[in-house]
C-alpha cells in the first residue's frame, strides 16, 4: 500500500508531527498551510485523502470539505481540529467529512480512524522509520 495524502494546517509544527508519522507508515505526504493552497494542490495532484485543520487563512477547512465534496464524494476526509464548540464534530460530518479528530489527539484514535477509512492495518509502536 502506498497512499498519497494531503495535510492542510496553518501550524507548521502540526503538519510536521502528522507528516513524520504518516511517512513512517509509508504514506506519501503533500502539505498546505491554507485552505486555498489545499484546493490548488488538489487541482494539480491526485490524492487518496486529506487531513484538514478547520481554522485556516483564506479558506477554512469546512469550506474545503464542501469544495471537495462537490467534485468527489468518496475521498476520505479527516478533520483534525482544536475547536472547542460542542457542535464542531457534527458540523464537520454534516458537511461531508468522514471523521472528526479533536486536538490534541491520541495516535490510537487517529490510527484506528485511518485503518477504518483505508481498510488497512497499521503497526503500533515501536515503528522505526
Amino acid at each position, binding site marked *: 500500500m502506498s497512499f498519497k495524502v494531503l495535510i492542510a494546517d496553518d501550524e507548521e*509544527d502540526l503538519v510536521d508531527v502528522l507528516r513524520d508519522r504518516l511517512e513512517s507508515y509509508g504514506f506519501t505526504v503533500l502539505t498546505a498551510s491554507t485552505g486555498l493552497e489545499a484546493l490548488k494542490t488538489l487541482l494539480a495532484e491526485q490524492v487518496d485523502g486529506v487531513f484538514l485543520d478547520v481554522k485556516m487563512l483564506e479558506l477554512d477547512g469546512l469550506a474545503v470539505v464542501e469544495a471537495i465534496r462537490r467534485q468527489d464524494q468518496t475521498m476520505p476526509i479527516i478533520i483534525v481540529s482544536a475547536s472547542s464548540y460542542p457542535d464542531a464534530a457534527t458540523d464537520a460530518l454534516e458537511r461531508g467529512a468522514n471523521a472528526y479528530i479533536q486536538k490534541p489527539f491520541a495516535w490510537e484514535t487517529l490510527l484506528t480512524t485511518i485503518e477504518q477509512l483505508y481498510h488497512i492495518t497499521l503497526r503500533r509502536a515501536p515503528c522505526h522509520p
Partner: protein
Amino acid sequence: MAVHLQRSYTELEHKAATHAAMATENAALYRQVRQQAEVLEARVTARTQELETANRHKSEFLANVSHELRTPLTAIKGFVDNMLDGLTGELNPRQLRYLTRLQANTDRLARLINDLLDLSRIEAGRLELRPTTVRLAPLVHDVVASLRPVADARGLQLEALTTDVSVWADADKVTQVLMNLLGNALKFTPADGRVTVTVAHDGSAWVQIAVADTGPGIAADEAAYIFDQFYQAAHMDLAKRHSTGLGLTIAKTLVEMHGGRLWVESSVGHGSTFRFTLPVDPPVTPAAAPLPEESR
C-alpha cells in the same frame, strides 16, 4: 347648639380639605413610583442585555483561549509521542523516562482544558443533556474494561456488580461521572486494594450506583470540601496530583442535572464509597431524589 354645629361643620370641611390634599399628594406619589418603576424596568432590561452580551463574550473568549492552548499542546504531544513510538530511533533509559513524563504532563494539561471547558459550559447553563434509556450493565462494563489496564498496572482488583437495569440519562455524561469516580478510586487506593462498582435498584424511581474502594478514606471535615473546585489538586499529596481538581465538581453537577444526587460515605482507614442516583424514568412531575442515608 348652632355654634356647636358650626364648629363641627368647620372641622368636617377642614378634614375634607386635608383628605383632598392627601389624595392629590398620593396621586403625585403614585405617578412618581410608576415613573421610577419604569426607569428601573428599563435599567433591568438594559443590564440583562449587557450581561447576556458579556456572557457571550466570555464563552467566545473561553473557546478562543482553549483553541490557542490546544494548538501548541498538540504539537508538543505529537512530537513526544512520535519519539516514544520510535520514530527517531531507539531511546536511552533517561530519554524514555523524560519523554514519558512529558507525555503524562501534556495529557494532564489536555484534561485540564477539557474539564475547564466543561465546567464553564455547565456554569453558563450551556451544557445540554441528551437523555435516552440507557442500560447500565454494558455501560459500566465498558468503563471498567477501559480502566482495567490502570488497575492492573497499580496492582488493584477492579470489579463490577451490576443488575440489568436501565436509567433515563445521557450515556456520555454517566460515563464521564463513572470515569471520574473510578479514576479517583484507582488513584488513591494503595496496591493490593480493591475497587468495586455496584449498581443497585430497590424497585423505586431511582437506581443507585456506588464506587467503593479500600483506600485511606476521607475524614469527615475534609469530606465537606472534596466537591469544591481544585480542592484535591491543592490539598492532596504531591505524588498523587495527577488530576485537574475539577473531576468531582463536574461529576456532582452532571448527576444533579439528571435530578440525582452524589455523595460520599467514608471514614479514615475504612475506604470511601461514592454513591450517586439516576432516575429510572423520564421526569413527569418534578420529583426529588432520595436523601443520602446517614454517613457511616
